[in-house]
C-alpha cells in the first residue's frame, strides 16, 4: 500500500532558480536564504520519497489563454522544462509516475473532483524551483513527480475549502494504491508578494507567520478564508497560498512540524518553507 509520509511547502520564486543556475547562491544577497534550505536538503537525503505530488501553478509558461484548468494532473512518463522567456532552466527532465498518476486522476474524478488530465505538460519554475531547493543540483532528480497544476492566476481561483478537500481525497487515493510507495505532497508558491501595480513589493510577515501556524495546527480555520483576504493581506500573488492547503489536506488531522523557515526578500517575495509529517494515529 502506498502511504503519505511527509508534506513540504515552499515559495517558488523564479529569481531563486536563476541564482542557482548562475552559481550566485553564495552572494550576500542570496546566502541567508539558501542557508535556510540546508537543513531541508539534508532531511530530504534521508527521506527521499519514491514519488512527490507537487501542487504548483503554471505562470503562463505552458498554459496560454486557450485553456485554463482549475485543477489538473500530469500523468505522462516525463515532463520537459519550459522556456519562460530566458531559455529553459538547465535542470534534468522531470520524470513522472504514470501508474500512480492515472490511479490518482481516476480516483479523484470518481470522488467528484473534476481533474483535467494532462498527457502532455511542460513544467516551469513553479515546480522546478522547489525541486532545486530540496534536492540541490543532481544530474537526475532522485524522485518521480506527479505535477498537480492549480489555476491561481485568474480569478476565480478554487476556494480554500475545495483545496483542503482535494488534499484529503489525495490522501485516500494514495492509500488505496496497491504498490508499496513512499509518497510526499508538496504545496508551493507564496508567501506574501505582489508583483504588479503601485502596491507592488507588499510583504506581510505577521500574516504569513499566522498562516503557517494555522496551517500546521488549525487548518480547518483556513478553509473559509476568502480570496479577497489573501489578496488584501498577502498581495495579489499571495493567493498562491491556497495551494498549501492541498498539501495540508493530504496530511490528515494532526501533523508534527519538522522544520520552518522564513526569509524576506527573495526578489519581490516573502519566502516561507515548512516540512511536516503526519502524526501517527
Amino acid at each position, binding site marked *: 500500500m502506498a502511504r503519505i509520509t511527509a508534506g513540504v511547502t515552499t515559495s517558488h520564486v*523564479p*529569481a531563486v532558480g*536563476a*541564482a542557482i543556475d548562475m552559481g*550566485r547562491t553564495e*552572494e*550576500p*544577497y*542570496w546566502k541567508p536564504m539558501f542557508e535556510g534550505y540546508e537543513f531541508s536538503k539534508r532531511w530530504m537525503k534521508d527521506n527521499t520519497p519514491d514519488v512527490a505530488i507537487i501542487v504548483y501553478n503554471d*505562470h*503562463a*509558461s505552458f498554459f*496560454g*489563454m486557450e485553456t*485554463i484548468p482549475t485543477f489538473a494532473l500530469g500523468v505522462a512518463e516525463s515532463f520537459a522544462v*519550459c*522556456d*519562460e*522567456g*530566458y*531559455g529553459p532552466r538547465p535542470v534534468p527532465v522531470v520524470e513522472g509516475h504514470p501508474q500512480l498518476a492515472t490511479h490518482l486522476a481516476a480516483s479523484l474524478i470518481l470522488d467528484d473532483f473534476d481533474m483535467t488530465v494532462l498527457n502532455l505538460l511542460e513544467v516551469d519554475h513553479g515546480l522546478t524551483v522547489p525541486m532545486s531547493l530540496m534536492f540541490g543540483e543532481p544530474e537526475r532528480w532522485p524522485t518521480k513527480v506527479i505535477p498537480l497544476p492549480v489555476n491561481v*492566476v*485568474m*480569478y*476565480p481561483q478554487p476556494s480554500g475549502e475545495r483545496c483542503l478537500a482535494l488534499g484529503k481525497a489525495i490522501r485516500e487515493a494514495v492509500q488505496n494504491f496497491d504498490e508499496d510507495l513512499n509518497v510526499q505532497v508538496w504545496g508551493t508558491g507564496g508567501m*506574501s508578494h*505582489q*508583483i*504588479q*501595480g*503601485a*502596491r*507592488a*513589493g*507588499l*510583504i*506581510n*510577515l505577521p*500574516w504569513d507567520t499566522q498562516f503557517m501556524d494555522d496551517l500546521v495546527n488549525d487548518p480547518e480555520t483556513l478553509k473559509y478564508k476568502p480570496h*479577497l483576504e489573501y*489578496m*488584501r*493581506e498577502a498581495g*495579489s500573488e499571495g493567493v498562491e497560498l491556497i495551494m498549501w492547503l492541498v498539501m495540508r489536506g493530504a496530511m490528515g488531522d494532526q501533523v508534527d512540524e519538522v522544520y520552518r523557515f522564513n526569509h*524576506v*526578500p*527573495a*526578489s*519581490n517575495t*516573502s519566502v516561507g518553507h515548512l516540512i511536516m509529517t503526519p502524526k501517527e494515529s
Partner: protein
Amino acid sequence: MTKPDFRQFDDLPGTTIFTIEKAREGYELNQFCMSLRTAENREKFLADERAYLDGFPMTEAQKQAVLDRDFQAMLDNGGNVYFLSKIFASEGKSYVQAVSTMTDLNVEQYQAMMIAGGRNIDDGWRSQAERAAFEAAGGTDRNAPAGSQSTTAESTEGEDA
C-alpha cells in the same frame, strides 16, 4: 451557489486583479506574450516591435502600451503580469526591474525597500479608505528611501535574473 463579485477587488489600492472578465479583455495581448516563449520570436519582436505586434489582432491601446513598456497600461488593458513577463524576459530583465516601474520608486529605491522588509501594509495599503487617509496625513512608506522619484536607472542588485 455564490454570485461572482468582480468589483470587490476595486477596494485594493494600487492593485489590478486578473479576473475572468479582464482575461477576456486581455486575450490577444496575453497571447502575443505567449508567442515570446521561443528565442526565434523574441528576436523577431525585438528587431521590429511594431511589425511584430501588427501580426496580432490586439487593440491599438494594447500595442502602444507594449511599445511604451507601460506595464500598468498593459494591466489596465487586460494583461497579466505572468504573461507580460515574457516581454521583459525577452530583454533579459528581471521581475524587480519591470515591477518597480509600476510604483513611484525607481529600481534602486524599490530594491532598497524590499531589502528593508518590503512594502508595509500598515502604511495605508489595506484598502482605498486607508490609502486616502494615509495620503491625506502626508504619510510615506517607511521602508522606501526618501525623495522617491521614478527614473529609468537600471539595477545592479544581486537578484537580477
